[in-house]
């Protein structure tokens, strides 16, 4: 039999609790003794001051400091022929292994399981579920899909006033991990690999110098100094 940890509140204590939580009506608050109200306001001011003094990590600025100035439109480059960064590979490379990621990462998670509190109890209510009663994966995917849609006009489940704060340090850790992975990719990959500028820089539209060419039927087209060379070939030789 579990120990009973419940406690009873007097009507006065209950009323003060509601007032402190901001759940009491104006009239109810007005009935509270002045010293309680002052004490409550002082506590709120102290908490607000503490929260205001905490600066959120400026991940974007950190990333850009690592990159230097890139006078390019990143999204265009990404939508073009730029590679998708392999975050996982960069992270694992930094950790000192270049072997297969899956088994090692899985082993790491299994070995240290339990140290990180489960996030599901905090996340579940935000997506309308309850742990153990509904498939969380489906709910999350549905929520993400819903909020990612163009016609989404509601309040994000991560919106201020929501429950994201409940996730607490774990969420901050995940955010830092993502930023770290990005930084690793940007600055600590294979030193022989093409630079980030090469990945993100605009495509240069200019002619090429043709040193040698051997083709059955060929025509070289050049439409100005700001245009790429086009080598037109007939492919009779490739026919069966």
């Amino acid at each position, binding site marked *: 039999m579990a120990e009973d940890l419940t406690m009873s509140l007097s009507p006065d204590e209950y009323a003060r609790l509601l007032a402190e939580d901001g759940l009491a009506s104006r009239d109810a608050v007005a009935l509270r003794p002045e010293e309680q109200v002052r004490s409550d306001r002082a506590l709120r001011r102290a908490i607000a001051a503490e929260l205001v003094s905490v600066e959120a990590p400026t*991940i974007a600025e*950190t990333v850009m*400091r*690592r990159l*230097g*100035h890139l006078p390019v439109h990143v999204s*265009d480059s990404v*939508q*073009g*022929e730029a*590679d998708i960064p392999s975050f996982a590979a960069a*992270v694992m490379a930094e*950790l000192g292994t270049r072997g297969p990621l899956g088994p090692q990462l899985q082993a790491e*998670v299994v070995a*240290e399981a339990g*140290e990180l509190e489960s996030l599901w109890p905090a996340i579940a209510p935000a997506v309308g579920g309850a742990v153990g009663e509904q498939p969380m994966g489906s709910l999350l995917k549905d929520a993400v899909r819903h909020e990612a849609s163009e016609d989404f006009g509601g309040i994000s489940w991560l919106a201020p006033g929501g429950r994201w704060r409940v996730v607490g340090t774990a969420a901050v850790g*995940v955010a*830092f*991990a993502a930023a*770290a992975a990005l*930084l*690793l990719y940007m*600055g*600590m990959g*294979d*030193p*022989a690999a*093409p*630079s980030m*500028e*090469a*990945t993100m820089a*605009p*495509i*240069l*539209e*200019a*002619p*090429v110098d*043709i*040193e*040698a*060419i*051997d*083709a*059955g039927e060929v025509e070289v*087209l050049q*439409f100005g100094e700001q*245009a*790429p*060379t*086009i*080598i*037109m*070939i*007939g*492919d009779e*030789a*490739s*026919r069966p």
Partner: protein
Amino acid sequence: MMRLLLLLSLVALPQNGWAQGKTVGQSSAAVKLRMWTVHATNAHSDTDDKLDRIVKHLRRLKYSGFSYVDTQGGTVRRDGKIQMPIPGGRSVQLTLLSKTAEKARVRVRIKGKKAVILDTTVSIRRNGFFMVAGPKHDGGVLVLPIFARY
């Protein structure tokens, strides 16, 4: 897992040395060679959005529609080769012969089912590209924009 997150968090802290580590303009030994495969045809007049960046050059060709097929390629060092299949049983081989700060010398060989269709050596300006067009495919031709990024 927390140890992993902590490690990554520490890495995320700004460090002056790293801030200068891989700066804009730093040279490297490798070149990223990319090849798009585009199907040009007169059967329609649509152009894939993915081709926006080069569409004005594609329209120089006498075709009305351009469909993006795929992107292939890889990162190579000197004398490194990349072999890529293209529709029609053909293949394209790109070889990085050399590179300077300004240009990369690349050999391009396109093989048909029986013979080599094209064997050319070109110097592509850094982050530039050129196009090979002509292999027949599905009522039109293939256009192969080839990029050298470094």
